């Protein structure tokens, strides 16, 4: 049967890899090509690279760098950051990316999601939704590039973007980002009940048990940053990924 995916999510800033905490305070964790080579050797299920400043700076994807990433990946690669047009996405697919991930452009212009799905198939279009909880712990949609909460109802937005053609949803719990404090299971469960397409949960993963918990409440896949790039209580940078046999044992369905 189909396996649940466990996906390292790497954040790109100015050509280097960084790791944020609650979307702030990016810390340099290393050279992306080197990290991707290591993840390739470790045979990760899939890899995700998100350029966290492209949209903020109104910049296009760094095609040259992304092509180098794809050249090191003998597994599927998803890229997000700064994509605004069909032509840009086409260039990314030509350079070896399997999926594009949209947030800013999807919020501004859901028609782009439709245009991409029509042209390249919905399986290659992922939308990323960042959720911040307000003081009453209600989920609010957060725009990462504008660094603020926007008023749209999060479940309505999910439905709208899937209706528009998104084939996969990346659900990011902003308050959990980089904290290694466990996933927001309640959020993941609500989202996975609401959507038909595969849901990838990210934010807060700190252990194999966290991965299993997120999958048990309905995630098709789990992505993580800090868990795969930090090691130990002092957050030493060390790239790790569980062995296939470990994941197999962990995620085996009874």
């Amino acid at each position, binding site marked *: 049967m189909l396996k649940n995916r466990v996906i390292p999510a790497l954040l790109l800033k100015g050509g280097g890899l960084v790791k944020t905490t609650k979307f702030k305070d990016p810390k340099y964790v290393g050279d992306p090509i080197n990290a991707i080579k290591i993840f*390739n050797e470790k045979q990760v299920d899939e890899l995700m690279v998100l350029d966290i400043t492209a949209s903020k700076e109104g910049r296009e994807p760094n095609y040259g760098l992304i092509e180098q990433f794809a050249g090191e990946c*003998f597994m599927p690669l998803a890229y997000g950051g700064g994509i605004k047009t069909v032509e840009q996405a086409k260039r990314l697919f030509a350079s*070896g990316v399997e999926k594009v991930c949209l947030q800013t452009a999807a919020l501004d212009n859901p028609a782009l999601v439709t245009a991409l799905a029509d042209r390249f198939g919905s399986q290659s279009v992922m939308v990323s939704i960042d959720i911040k909880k307000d003081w009453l712990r209600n989920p609010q949609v957060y725009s990462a590039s504008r660094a603020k909460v926007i008023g749209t109802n999060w479940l309505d937005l999910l439905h709208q973007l899937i209706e528009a053609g998104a*084939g*996969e949803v990346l659900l990011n719990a902003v308050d959990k980002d980089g904290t290694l404090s466990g996933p927001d299971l309640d959020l993941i469960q609500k989202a996975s009940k609401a959507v038909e397409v595969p849901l990838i949960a990210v934010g807060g993963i700190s252990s194999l048990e966290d991965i299993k918990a997120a999958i048990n409440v309905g995630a098709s896949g789990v992505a993580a940053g800090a868990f795969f790039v930090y090691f130990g209580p002092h957050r030493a940078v060390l790239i790790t990924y569980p062995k296939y046999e470990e994941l197999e044992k962990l995620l085996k369905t009874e």
Partner: protein
Amino acid sequence: MTNSPVYIIDTGLANIGSVARMIQKIGGAAHICNNPNAIGSNGKIVLPGVGHYDHGMEALNKHGFDAEFWDEVIKRDVPVLGICLGMQLLCRSSEEGTSHGLGLIKADVKKFRFAQEENLKVPHMGWNIVEPGVENPLIPNLETEQRFYFVHTYKVVPDDDNIVIGWANYGGVFCAAFQQKNIFGAQFHPEKSHQFGIELFSRFIAL
């Protein structure tokens, strides 16, 4: 390892770069080519593809990879590996479109259909195990499991299960790979399947 050229058919529909990179990685000579006249009968052919069935057939015909070309391929016994949509185009027809396929394989392409309570998502996307079918040179019977990366909404349904060289299970078993003489097809993406894909391409190159 033989160094006979591997011609990757490029009709603008697939991520041919990753196929070429994997073939180069294992020491093969990959040639990306969009013109049937550039293909020599001493080599092997990979037909990758993603996207809509009708667009796939249209692109093949537009570039001259027409019935006459495939007749020659069969006659000269040139090994062919169709990947994903490429595999489906080797069949007779697809529920996805109205175009006739190449018809080299007696099979039709049908959509995954599941009862709601099965809770299975379409497309079938992610890693799945492929069990070897009839004895064949690409997917051998090994003690260790072989897993591959899939992304597809339609599946190949052959008339005769004796051409199936790999089975996968998604709400029921389906044909993940087939072989009829020199014509091979894989529904999954070996170029995105780590060592499992590398091994499969190595076996194809060694044919």
